[in-house]
């Protein structure tokens, strides 16, 4: 056979073997990374790692957790915002990064709405209102009454200016009609000693972190900040039930991907994570963190993000909270 014929035959055969443009290689074909924009061992990190492990099983490819802490979650979120939208970079983030951050910091490097596609609302966690043991109140209504009778006496601790702990307390104050002094700390754990000794009056803390001190009698539990009671303390009423009707403050945890990621990948992730959320093992892990699984469609998550963003931006404006 002539060399040219051989060459033509080979090329012809090869063109049949090559995948056509419409036929993409099945995703995923290499490991994924899940960026956690907070330091290790925090709630978001533990949640992220558990999710990553289960997701690896579902997808058949390892999902590696990468911690990229700093600036309240902004550094890690920004990194994902600028990452390639090929479905291999995921972000697990919270109300702080996507609903509060944008309203608080006009100079934020990423645009929470435009740079990301919400995938799924993974979980919801709520806070508990705890009070100093020497404060003569046993529930939310009494607290409000005491605050009104003694203006200027109540102060509240927080994990920093602009954090959800701070804004929750501001919302509480404005809805209850009381003025309180804000005392910021570098983390709710650091508020505890001063709360126990009575120098700080109240604190909105993560349920799981606060429970030991409540059970040990070092601080008093007044109410749950969420819409529903927490299964960890079923006897404790919500703040809405016990003194400030309509008060709700929750934190959402969800997965995001960079904007531009193909919709079928987003749907696939959403489907797999929803399935993980139904497993008892995962639900147990969430319960340990004081969080409840949510799930649902990407649109449901997007709607929640919008609602929360609007709510907190109003609180921020009304309370005059500024970072600069």
């Amino acid at each position: 056979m002539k060399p040219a014929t051989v060459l033509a035959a080979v090329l012809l055969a090869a063109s049949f073997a090559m995948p056509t443009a419409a036929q993409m290689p099945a995703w995923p074909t290499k490991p994924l990374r899940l960026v956690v924009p907070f330091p290790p061992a925090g709630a978001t990190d533990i949640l992220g790692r558990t999710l990553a492990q289960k997701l690896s099983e579902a997808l058949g490819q390892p999902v590696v957790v990468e911690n990229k802490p700093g600036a309240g979650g902004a550094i890690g979120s920004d990194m994902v915002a600028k990452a390639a939208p090929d479905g291999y970079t995921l972000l697990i983030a919270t109300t702080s990064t996507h609903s509060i951050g944008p309203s608080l910091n006009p100079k934020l490097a990423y645009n929470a709405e435009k740079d990301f596609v919400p995938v799924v609302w993974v979980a919801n966690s709520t806070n508990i209102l705890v009070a100093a043991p020497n404060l003569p109140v046993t529930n939310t209504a009494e607290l409000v009454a005491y605050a009104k009778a003694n203006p200027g006496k109540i102060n509240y601790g927080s994990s920093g200016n602009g954090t959800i702990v701070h804004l929750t307390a501001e919302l509480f104050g404005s809805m209850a009609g009381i003025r309180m002094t804000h005392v910021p700390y570098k983390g709710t754990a650091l508020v505890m000693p001063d709360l126990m000794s009575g120098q700080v009056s109240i604190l909105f803390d993560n349920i799981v972190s606060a429970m030991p001190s409540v059970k040990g009698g070092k601080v008093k539990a007044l109410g749950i900040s969420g819409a529903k009671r927490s299964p960890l303390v079923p006897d404790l009423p919500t703040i809405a039930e016990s003194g400030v009707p309509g008060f709700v403050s929750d934190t959402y945890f969800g997965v995001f991907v960079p904007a531009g990621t193909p919709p079928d990948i987003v749907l696939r992730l959403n489907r797999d994570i929803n399935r993980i959320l139904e497993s008892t093992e995962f639900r147990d892990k969430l319960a340990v963190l004081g969080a409840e699984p949510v799930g649902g469609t990407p649109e449901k998550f997007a709607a929640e993000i919008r609602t929360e963003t609007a709510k907190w931006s109003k609180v921020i404006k009304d309370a005059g909270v500024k970072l600069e």
Partner: protein
Amino acid sequence: MELLANLGTGFSVALTLPNLLYCFSGVLLGTLIGVLPGIGPVPTIAMLLPITYALPPVSALIMLAGIYYGAQYGGSTTAILVNLPGEASSVVTCLDGYQMARQGRAGTALAVAAIGSFIAGTFATLLVAAFAPPLAEVALKFGPAEYFSLMVLGLIAAVVLASGSLVKAIGMIVLGLLLGIIGTDVNSGLQRYSFGIPELSDGIGFVVVAMGLFGFAEIIINLENTEKREVFTNKVSGIWIKWKDLKEALPAMLRGTGIGSVLGILPGGGALLGAFASYTVEKKIAKDPSRFGKGAIQGVAGPEAANNAGAQTSFIPLLTLGIPPNAVMALMVGAMTIHSIQPGPQVMTNNPQLFWGLIVSMWIGNVMLVVLNLPLIGIWVKLLQVPYRLLYPAILLFCCIGVYSLQNNVFDVLMTAGFGLLGWIFVKLECEPAPLLLGFILGPMMEENLRRALLLSRGDFTVFATRPISAVMLGIAIIMLIVIVAPSIRKKREEAFHE
């Protein structure tokens, strides 16, 4: 004797073969990690967290705790051998420990550190076992006003750290205070001195500053002075410690143990104050203070004992109140949470095996540390004899990786280089970096607590004098100030007189 019964429970948990192995691997890993500059217990524990999730809770905690104080000790090794403090508290060990190494007494310095740490660890463990709850109550008495006064006391004591010019030392402290302010202001959320760079919004890491000022600068200076360097790599006098040295060091070790145990209980940075405080005390009560900074053995023995004692007693706020006093403890809380254990007042009653098993294994870990490290001293000393031209690039490499591993950010490595330059300038101008580091650590805490105390007292300044503990500390601080400044003024007057 309830204590003995409890200790018995603890031993039965800690002495099982698996737990002994976990303890050993934790301590070994911790030592190695501590020796590698930059990578400290925080990034290590963070990197190993996934593994500990798979272990039973007591074992996981035993291993994590082992890593924690293993790293404390390893940090001292690098401080002595190559002037690189891996941990905040190892900075003080650099001052005299490294000088001892340069005089060929590295073995003695390392041995003193090991033995001092062991004595301190034993005593502190007993303290934790017997007095955890009441000590925790003492810690609760410390509010912002007390912390502020403590920091003021600490800063004035920092002046004692320097051996040279008083004005320069104060200047370095103030500069450290300013550097510490970089980042987000807790009380207002405002970003200060961060130029809009997100990586600076949480401030500069201690390791970054220390690595640059102490480590990099030292390497550069060594490379410039090729003649002086040969002296200490060739002359190594013995790897064991002489009885005479031990006798000299022992009182310092005991004093350091006391100081460190007390300061370690305070959540919010009490542990590292211990090493600084011990150094100050030793220098002040020494018959010949000029020895300090040139290889005084008490300058290693005291602070080393103090920081190990502090490391042990810093478990108290964690185990009794559920309050993690530092980043490492916060990681351990995370590890406990994963296993559905809530640290706090009921851990002792609900989970006695965990509590006492952990405490006993802390002591066993100390034993293992001594057994592990004393023979290792020989290896370390041999390492010092590797020709410097091969050693320093490796040190640079480990520093870079170590700094990176803190936040997985190369920006930190670039900043360390910047501090290397600054450190070089300081050496040229004869400005000492140790007071700067102390100011760097204490400054932001001092300001935070000052403003918080005033916030809580609604602007009332007298709160610092009316609260008893605070008043006492401020009183001591004023006395120290007079004691420090008075001889200087007298000297200046004499100098002026002679001119």
